[in-house]
């Protein structure tokens, strides 16, 4: 076989035909020369040659590959059929496109955050060093999205490990950068000296940061910028090297640009500038033994698999933790910790951490939708196939093998599935872009082979799913029976009907599961949105103020917080304003141990803390139950006072009036033991997570802190619209000093942002549930109408024999009702079985919630029965005479 000839087989056929013609002419010439008459000569020549058509066919077959040839023919035949039925083609392709598109989009996201490797040399050699057993140890203070090490621990690991050929530590945080005149918030990557060397990242321009840059004291270090920032801010100008960036008020030389494909260690947050770790020395972060903020990873030496590295790290752990034990704290649990090595080839991802479970759940849900679409298509194809029964019977009777006919029917399905997959991939591109903007993350969404393979596999699988069963079924009956069945007086076989019923039952069952999950997620979100937080967060604006770049004289800087509050409170429309060290319902937290409370001199416990100004409770709409608010007499030198919530009073204080009772905090480095007197009591409020229960909270007076900060988070309640308030507060602050950095968020927005996973689940599962219900309804409608058409004769006889129209409607509805009932029963069982998978993402809602189940069943039953009412009425309105004469 020759592939070239395969593609040119028609050319060769003509060529051979010409050649045979040439033979005939020559032989005829010869025969005439031998003395024959022209007709006789031509006839003799033909006889000599044999049948030219047969010869050509033999040669054509030599040029062809049987399988490909017939597949091609089948596809072309299928395409012609689809062209003749554009309505069917459109419905089929559109429903598959939706199904495959949704699956591909979600898979694309999973691929991007879960499966894709870091874009560095041999990512599989990388391993992270983490605590292998936290046990009962809790990190006292932490910061950032991957707090896995303290700096002293990192130093010890770096100096004592032998498993890695190179090792590095890193930390990500938002950084203020002044480029030209404007200050920008960018993603900063703070790295130890060997970061780029170990990862094998070569600079696109200039040089990378090295261990020379990361020395104690730092001097005047350089900064590397990402390719994206270079393009965005400097237009890709090569003269960027040596230019100065002002980062957090300090000048840095740009020493290099990283290549385009490298985005740091996080898959969904790409860095803009990279600076050495030593810079944080000034903040005291490098000495603190109780402050967790770094992530550590390295490249394993050849011959060091993960378990060997883990064993090695475990063996050096006791020494390391002994050497870094924090002073002034209980270190028993700390000394029990040990280190381990963990795979990190797919990088870090907060998206993965946060959405890992929801994404897989969504993929499962989208898969169910695709399954329902398949069942629907199978039903459609079955209906079409029965219309083509005669044609197929004729083909079978003429000697086509069953396999050949099945192959032809499958080719048609494959055609639909391929078209659906292509449309689905196009749809997925937009869908996943929408998802990413909804989630507000940076993800590399390029289609890779995994995504395309997924879509292709989905197409192939679905075409088999919806094509195979009908094809097998249609070709099973004997041609004779099929030919007869098309004639008068036969009702279709029960069995063939059975498959269609089974498909509809499956559809109903699956859509009930989807509808149920959609309702669960929507109700869970609703619970979260309406849960009592103890605050009235509607109408509260958060202003983030920072005067550290404003060059204020020290005396004024000291009282800037006070000045801000006074000015904001004087702004028209402002009802109340207060500062808070912890903005409620954001992720930040501050926890201190409580040593003694009330009359108990001993006892363990801990409480959340927030340092707030006066008017905080008025602003947040959480009025004091008893006692007083903070006031001007609460100064750094006066006795420390606190306002506690009811949970604190109940769990830690003595019974009776909490006002006037005292408690003591446990000492921590930088935070000596302090005695507080309770002066006020507030209702319970949520602290930093809307999903958590009420916890003990201490509100301490910000006015009693000794170091006055030059930044603040001001909560502002007002009666005017937030946009208007934003601009008037901005003006107020500009009047204080033009150099102050201001940004705003509504408290409500902030809460919604934290509920993104739930909102994603509710939105998408709601969409999928709706889609599933529509598909199932179409399926049921199709089957019932088909049933009515098939039984026109029978219904005509019944009517003629005296059945009332109501009887007919009842009969049809009963048939539909039975299908619906079985489907709902199976669906309920399935929904209950799947419930456990969803339980961890539901809030204040049981996965077997009976009310939700009842709503799902009720609504599905209602739309399904409504869908079958149409065909039933049509049947009842048949004219018996017309019905009997039909066919």
């Amino acid at each position, binding site marked *: 076989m020759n592939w070239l000839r395969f593609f040119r087989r028609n050319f060769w056929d003509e060529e051979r035909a010409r050649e045979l013609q040439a033979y005939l002419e020559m032989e005829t010439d010869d025969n005439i020369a031998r003395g024959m008459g022209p007709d006789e000569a031509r006839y003799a020549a033909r006889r*000599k040659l*044999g049948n030219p058509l047969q010869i050509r066919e033999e040669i054509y077959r030599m040029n062809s590959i049987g399988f490909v040839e017939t597949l091609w023919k089948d596809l072309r035949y299928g395409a012609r059929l689809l062209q003749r039925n554009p309505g069917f083609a459109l419905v089929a392709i559109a429903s598959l496109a939706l199904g495959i598109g949704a699956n591909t989009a979600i898979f694309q996201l999973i691929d991007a955050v879960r499966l894709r490797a870091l874009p560095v040399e041999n990512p599989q050699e990388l391993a992270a060093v983490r605590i292998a057993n936290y046990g009962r140890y809790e990190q006292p203070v932490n910061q950032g999205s991957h707090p896995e090490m303290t700096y002293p621990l990192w130093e010890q690991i770096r100096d004592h490990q032998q498993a890695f050929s190179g090792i590095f530590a890193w930390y990500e945080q938002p950084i203020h950068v002044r480029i030209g005149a404007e200050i920008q918030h960018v993603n900063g990557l703070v790295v130890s000296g060997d970061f780029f060397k170990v990862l094998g990242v070569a600079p696109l321009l200039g040089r990378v940061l090295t261990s020379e840059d990361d020395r104690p004291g730092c001097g005047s270090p350089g900064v590397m910028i990402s390719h994206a920032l270079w393009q965005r801010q400097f237009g890709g100008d090569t003269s960027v090297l040596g230019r100065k960036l002002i980062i957090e008020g300090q000048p840095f030389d740009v020493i290099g640009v990283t290549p385009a494909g490298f985005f740091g260690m996080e898959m969904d947050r790409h860095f803009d500038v990279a600076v050495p770790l030593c810079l944080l020395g000034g903040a005291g972060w490098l000495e603190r033994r109780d402050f967790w903020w770094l992530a550590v990873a390295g490249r394993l030496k050849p011959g060091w698999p993960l378990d060997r590295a883990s064993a090695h790290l475990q063996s050096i752990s006791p020494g390391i933790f002994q050497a870094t034990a924090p002073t002034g704290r209980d270190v028993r649990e700390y000394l029990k910790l040990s280190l381990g090595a963990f795979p990190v080839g797919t990088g870090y991802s907060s998206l993965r951490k946060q959405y890992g479970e929801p994404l897989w759940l969504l993929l499962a849900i989208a898969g169910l939708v695709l399954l329902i679409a398949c069942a629907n298509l199978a039903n459609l194809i079955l209906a079409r196939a029965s219309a083509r029964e005669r044609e197929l019977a004729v083909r079978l009777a003429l000697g086509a093998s069953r396999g050949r006919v099945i192959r032809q029917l499958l080719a048609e399905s494959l055609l639909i599935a391929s078209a659906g997959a292509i449309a689905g991939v196009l749809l997925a591109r937009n869908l996943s872009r929408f998802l990413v903007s909804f989630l507000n993350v940076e993800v590399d969404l390029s289609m890779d082979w995994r995504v395309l393979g997924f879509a292709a596999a989905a197409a192939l699988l679905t075409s088999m799913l919806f094509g195979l069963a009908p094809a097998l079924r249609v070709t099973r009956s004997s041609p004779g029976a099929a030919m007869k069945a098309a004639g008068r007086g036969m009702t279709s076989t029960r069995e063939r009907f059975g498959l269609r019923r089974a498909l509809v039952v499956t559809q109903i069952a699956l859509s009930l599961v989807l509808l149920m999950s959609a309702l669960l997620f929507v109700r869970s979100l609703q619970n979260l949105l309406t849960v009592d937080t103890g605050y009235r967060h509607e109408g509260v604006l958060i202003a983030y103020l920072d005067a550290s770049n404003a060059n204020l004289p020290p005396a004024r800087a000291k009282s800037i917080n006070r000045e801000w509050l006074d000015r904001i409170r004087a702004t028209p429309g402002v009802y109340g304003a207060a500062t808070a060290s912890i903005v409620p319902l954001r992720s930040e937290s501050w926890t201190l141990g409580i040593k003694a409370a009330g009359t108990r001199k001993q006892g363990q416990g801990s409480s959340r803390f927030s340092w707030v100004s006066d008017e905080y409770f008025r602003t947040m709409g959480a009025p004091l139950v008893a006692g007083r608010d903070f006031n001007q007499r609460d100064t750094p030198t006066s006795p420390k006072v606190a306002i506690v919530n009811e949970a604190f009073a109940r769990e830690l204080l003595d019974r009776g009036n909490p006002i006037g009772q005292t408690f003591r905090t446990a000492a921590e480095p930088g935070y000596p033991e302090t005695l507080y007197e309770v002066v006020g009591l507030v209702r319970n409020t949520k602290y930093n997570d809307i999903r958590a229960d009420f916890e003990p909270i201490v509100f301490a007076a910000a006015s009693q802190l000794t170091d006055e900060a030059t930044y603040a988070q001001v909560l502002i309640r007002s009666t005017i619209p937030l946009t208007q308030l934003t601009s008037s507060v901005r003006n107020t602050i500009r009047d204080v000093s033009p150099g102050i950095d201001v940004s705003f968020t509504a408290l409500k927005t902030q809460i919604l942002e934290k509920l993104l996973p739930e909102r994603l689940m509710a939105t998408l599962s709601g969409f999928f549930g709706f889609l599933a219900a529509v598909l199932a309804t179409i399926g049921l409608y199709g089957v019932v109408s088909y049933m009515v058409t098939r039984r026109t004769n029978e219904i005509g006889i019944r009517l003629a024999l005296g059945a009332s129209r109501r009887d007919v409607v009842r009969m049809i509805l009963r048939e539909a009702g039975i299908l619906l009932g079985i489907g709902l029963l199976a669906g309920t069982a399935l929904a209950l079985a799947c419930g456990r998978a969803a339980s961890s993402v539901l809030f204040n809602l049981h996965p077997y919630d009976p009310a939700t189940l009842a709503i799902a069943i009720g609504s599905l039953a209602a739309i399904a029965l409504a869908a079958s009412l149409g065909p039933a009425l049509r049947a009842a309105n048949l004219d018996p005479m017309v019905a009997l004469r039909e066919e």
Partner: protein
Amino acid sequence: MPKRGAPPLEGDLIQGTLDMLILQALALGPAHGHTIAHVIEHRSEDVLQVEHGSLYPALHRLEDRRWISSFWGTSENNRKARYYRLTPTGRKQLTEQTGRWDRLVSAINRVLRPATG
């Protein structure tokens, strides 16, 4: 329609020999299908009566194997015809196949007529 599973040995033998005969006919120089058919017929003194049509699939196959190549030319009485010519591989094949054929024939002869050894 011929049933599958008909005696293959005979078919193969004839097919293989036909290829060899064609190659031999072309050994003298390029020729078109008509000539090749007649050459085989005359040389065998009309013993080998091949259906001329069966020559063409064989030519097609040989060309596929690159043992012969073809071109359109003009015949002796001024008609367009497709001419075939042996390629170097074809020539090598011819020697090889004739050698094998000779060995086969003499072996069979030795079996059939042991006395005349």
